[in-house]
Every structure is written in C-alpha cells, then in structure tokens.
C-alpha cells in the first residue's frame, strides 16, 4: 500500500498509482545534464537514449506481457533501414522519415504478431529468434537494396525542423533522441496505467486465468506486439538518422541479446528499468571499449548469472526492495 494518505475511494487509489513521483522528475531533469556537464559525450548520450527506447519497447512485451523475444532487433533494423532508405529515395526530412519507419516496423510487427500470439515457452523463443535471423539473412542477401555487409550507402538526413543540422558534436542528435524518448515514454506510461496495461499485467501474472475471466489474451498480445514493434522501429530510425549510417548490425542477434541484457539488468516490468539498464550498459561498454569483445561478453555473462541468481528483478527491483525494507522499519 502506498505510504501516502490512504485514498478514500478505489478510484482515487488507482489514480494515485499513476501519479508522478519526485524521483521521476529528478530523473528526467538529470537527462538534460549532458548538454551542460558532458558536452563531449553527447553522441554517447544520444546512443544511450536510443538504447533506452529500444529497451522500453522490449519491456512492453517482456516486462508487461511476459513474452520472451530473442529477435527483437528485427524491428529495430526495419526501422533503421526504412529511415535510411526513405532518406535516400524520397527525401531527408527526419520527422516524416521517423513516422514512415515507425509505421513500417509496426506493420511488420502486426503481421508477425499473428504468429507470435499462437505460441508460448520454447516455441515462442524459437519463433522470435527464427524470424529475427530470417530477416537478418534476407537483408544480407538483398545487397542491392540494403548494401549488404558494407552497410547502406547514401543516407542523407536534412536538418531537424529545417534549422538544426545533425552535427559531429551530437547536440542535435541528443536533443532529438531525448525528445523522442521522452514523448514515447509518456505514451508508454499512459499505456501501462490504462485498462489495456492492466490486461497485460494480467497476462504476465497468470496466463491460464485470463481466458477464465473472459479475456482474449491473443488479441491483447497482437496489439502490444504491434505497439512494441513500432517503438523498436522508432529507436532504429533515430539511430539511422542521427548517425547517417545503417548496417546489418542493426538486425543482428547480438543486438537482440544486448537489449535483453539491458532490460533485465535494470529490471523488467517497471518502465524505468530499461532506461537505467541501457545507461549502465552503454556507459560500461564505452569505458571498456578497449577490451576484446569476447571478454566484454565474459562480464556480461557473469552479470547475467548474478542477476538471475541474486537480483531477480534487476537493479531497480533490488533498490525498491531495500527501500521498502528501510521504510518498513
């Protein structure tokens, strides 16, 4: 129960659950500090914002509906390639490119949601993995369109709103990715506090009970999968636009695995988990960029084992437990 004054009606109680907490406001204010304090790290900050967006999209399906996906990079890649190709063949205006990329990822997400919603457990993991690998291979084969392993050439993004060029310092890039992240976050926050959000938590908490209260879990899953794919597409589009490059890496299994690591590190199913996890992951990777990739993954492996064994709800889960214990005394 919340520690604040007991709500007088059930409705007020539910309302109180979605109220903004001061820590949240502090969090978002803190995201502005790179502009002032770390101007040399703006490109990194921008990458963190994109990773956070991607983790947020995975959180919608994994943290709220309990769908484990090992192929979420598919939608990230679709967003990235769509944005890149759009700038190459149509025009370079970023906001319209973002919309088109989102729509494209959501559309493919909607189509594949009919497959995904039919499965649970290992088969579901395999299907998401298989679809992701299938798409990566397809992009690799379709070199005439995607540039294959050389990456997409000729991405040209116009200045944002016709005013701000995506420069080398990353000021525009970070402003853009942070704004997109914030807007998407607001929508995701609304979604999880909505009736639909409650239904998703129901699916996560007890898949078997849902049909027994008259719920069509599959249609909920199709919907959230589509939304999540769209958000992943936004993340992909933003990285393509802010860096003017798109490579096959955007579709890779590593990207799917990384985002999963970020999310569980921060804590799935709590909105901020993906954001915190993404920040820690990306900063750590930046700090350790000198070491060979396989040793980087050694620490990731140790971390995963430790999180599963010791910190099942991620960093934020652990923190809130400590906080609750401390309050309880």
């Amino acid at each position: 129960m919340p520690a604040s004054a007991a709500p007088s009606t059930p409705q007020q109680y539910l309302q109180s659950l979605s109220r903004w907490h001061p820590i949240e406001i502090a969090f978002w204010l803190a995201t502005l500090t790179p502009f002032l304090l770390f101007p040399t790290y703006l490109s990194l900050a921008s990458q963190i914002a994109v990773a956070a967006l991607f983790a947020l999209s995975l959180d919608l399906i994994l943290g709220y509906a309990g769908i484990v996906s090992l192929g979420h990079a598919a939608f990230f890649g679709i967003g990235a390639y769509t944005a890149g190709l759009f700038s190459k063949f149509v025009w370079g205006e970023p906001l319209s490119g973002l919309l088109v990329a989102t729509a494209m990822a959501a559309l493919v997400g909607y189509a594949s949601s009919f497959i995904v919603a039919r499965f649970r457990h290992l088969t579901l993991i395999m299907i998401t993995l298989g679809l992701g690998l299938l798409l990566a291979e397809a992009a690799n084969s379709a070199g005439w369109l995607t540039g294959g392993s050389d990456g997409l050439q000729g991405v040209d993004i116009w200045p944002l709103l016709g005013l701000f060029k995506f420069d080398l310092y990353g000021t525009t890039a970070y402003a853009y990715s942070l704004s997109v992240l914030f807007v998407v976050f607001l929508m995701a926050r609304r979604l999880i506090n909505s009736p639909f959000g409650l239904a998703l938590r129901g699916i996560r908490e007890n898949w078997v009970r849902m049909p027994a209260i008259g719920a069509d879990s599959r249609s909920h899953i199709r919907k959230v999968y589509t939304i999540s794919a769209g958000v992943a597409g936004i993340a992909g589009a933003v990285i393509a636009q802010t860096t003017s490059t798109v490579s096959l890496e955007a579709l890779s299994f590593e990207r799917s695995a990384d985002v999963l690591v970020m999310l569980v590190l921060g804590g799935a199913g709590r909105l901020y988990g993906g954001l915190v996890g993404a920040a820690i992951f990306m900063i750590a990777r930046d700090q350790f960029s000198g070491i060979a990739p396989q040793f980087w993954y050694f620490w990731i492996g140790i971390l995963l084992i430790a999180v599963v064994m010791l910190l099942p709800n991620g960093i934020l889960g652990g923190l809130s437990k400590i906080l609750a214990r401390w309050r309880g005394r």
Partner: protein
Amino acid sequence: MSAPAHIAPSKDAIANRAIALATRGLSMSFGSLVVARDIDLNLPVGARYALIGPNGAGKTTLINMMTGMLAPNSGQIFLGDEAITHLEPQDRVRRGLARTFQINTLFAGLNPLEAVTLAVIERRGIAGTFWQNIAMHREAIEEAHGILVKLRLGDCCYQPTRELPYGRQRLLEIALALATKPKVLLLDEPAAGVPQDESGDIFEVVASLSDDLTLLFIEHDMHVVFRFASHIIVLVGGAVFAQGTPAEIAADTGVREVYLGKRKHG
C-alpha cells in the same frame, strides 16, 4: 423473478425449468486412462448441484471440458440452447459460463481490486483501451469494489494477492468468476484446503448468491454437500454413477457402498 425464499422449489418445478447447461455423451481420456465416460448432464436454471466422487474420479476434468480448457474426445456441451463444444474458453465466459479453480489460479502480483477490475473491464469490452488512465473508468472500478465488498474482501482489496491469507484467496477465486456476471457458475472445491471452521463462511457466501445463478460445485465434505445442494451428481471412474436429490442419494445403497461408506471408514 425469483420465488419467495420460504417456498423451496419442488423437484418437479426444477425439472420443468429451462436447461442452463447440458452435456451429451462427453468422453475423454488421457492416454489409456479414461477420465470421462459418456457423461449426460442437465443443469436447470437456478439449480444448486453438487458434484461428488472420489479423488481422481474426473470431476475437475469435467469442469475443464465444460469450460473449454480441455477438449473432449467426443460429445457435446450446451449453454442454454447454444452448442458451445468448440468455442474458445473466453467465448464461453462471455456467454455466461464461469468457473473457479481447485488450486488457486490468481494474479499473484495484482491486488484484489486490480484483479477484479480487470475481469470487469474485460466483460465491458474496454480492456483494449490503451490511451486512457484506468481511473477514468469509475463505474467499472466501483462495480469491482462492490463485488469485493459483497465477498467480504473490502478491507484487503489493496493488498497484493500473494500476501493474502489463504481463505481470502479462495474468496477472490469466486469474486473473479462473479465479475464476469455468469449465468452458470462452476465451483471446483471452493473451500479446498480451508480449515473446517472457515469453510462454512465460504459456503455462506456461495449460498447468498442470486437465485437466478445456476451453480455446480465440487465438494468432498458431505455435511456441506447435503446442506447446500438441491441435487447431487456422483461421479466414479469418469462415469455418472448416480444422481438425484440429497435424500435419494443418501438412500442409494450403491452410492453408500462405493462412496459414502468408504469415506466414513477412511
């Protein structure tokens, strides 16, 4: 609509009522283990049926088939006049067939208010709304709260389900089913695992449900069965062994030997 409380409906009156739920030739087996043999049942509207039988008789399996969680090998199921044999479980619920589970099947991380509100918004068809805060849907929330209060869960409705005492969780099982506004309610051992002195409370709640509601409950405690049931079905080895009024069942020597007798000695 309902008859005055002091006039207990006679057996004939029940027989003449419309049928709320019926099965025809329902059969099912797990591999070589036959758990349902050619089951024909008719539950008249407003009846209170008890389904009894030894452990492993196939009682839960029968409910699973009726509610669509298991597919029978053969046979049909009717809700009112409609054949529902091939409907998805949630579509049966939406047509008014609800159930509870013998082993708690609750939303551990939600509190009772959230869980019952979820069932209510699903019934009202607003569970797909993702652009409004749930607090906007006051009527749904208040309806859910009303159900909780009626089931004596009003004082713990903000507490996570996993922290509730076991007896409360059993009541929440029923609350979730009621939130779907069922016409027929199937209760699988509503007081399973509850200490004897508390199980009376649960059946008081069950007995206070509306007279229009058709009820089928599984229960092992014969005192409870004879007290609350208007009709008893005895299931043995997946087949209907006997059925009738409590008096008829009590007088049936076959039942006494196979089931009641055994229980008394064991």
